[in-house]
């Protein structure tokens, strides 16, 4: 059974803290994605990666960075968390070519106080 796991379901951090969100997939997928989901705004792409050490900015990369040192792991980093980064964060993976179905993790609900 395919699986995407995220390190935490719920996370509470303070303003200014450095935050790491981890995502691991066991499907040997090339592509991995980080989204944030906010009410009324749908899913917005933060960053994606199509290979190890490769990354591209999505629609809202400001305030975030990513790391992909191994194929199965894609990390989202908030260098200095702010209250407007309180959100649900969803990780997904998919495998090219011609395969667009994305497999999602359960999400991490991050609250920044």
């Amino acid at each position, binding site marked *: 059974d395919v699986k995407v796991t995220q390190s935490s379901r719920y996370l509470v951090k303070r303003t200014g803290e450095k935050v790491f969100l981890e995502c691991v997939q066991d499907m040997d997928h090339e592509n991995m994605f980080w989204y944030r989901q906010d009410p009324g705004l749908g899913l*917005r792409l933060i960053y994606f990666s199509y290979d190890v050490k490769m990354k591209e900015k999505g629609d809202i990369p400001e305030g975030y960075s990513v790391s992909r040192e191994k194929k199965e792991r894609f990390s989202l980093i908030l260098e200095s968390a702010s209250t407007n980064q309180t959100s649900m964060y969803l990780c997904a993976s998919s495998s090219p070519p011609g*395969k*667009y*179905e994305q497999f999602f993790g359960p999400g991490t609900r991050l609250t920044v106080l």
Partner: protein
Amino acid sequence: SQQGEEDPQALSIQEGENATMNCSYKTSINNLQWYRQNSGRGLVHLILIRSNEREKHSGRLRVTLDTSKKSSSLLITASRAADTASYFCATDLLPNTNAGKSTFGDGTTLTVKP
């Protein structure tokens, strides 16, 4: 703004009724997908329809695509309480040199009352 926009934003029906939700998009697409999200969870892929297809079925799901109107619809027949969820369309744009990058809409929240 988002490439895909779902309509209606919210839909409430009785068990056994059919549910129809629509998605409109702005630019030419390669594929269009529908996903379901149960409350507070990740999304689950339901169905993909390619730009050269007009209709596709999967169990109680029927998806249509009208590229001339840049719209798609998802029909769930004989709905069940377990169908209560949010439904998102996702468009894969042309050209798509970065395979798998999709743009999601805001979603339709479906409530099926027992």
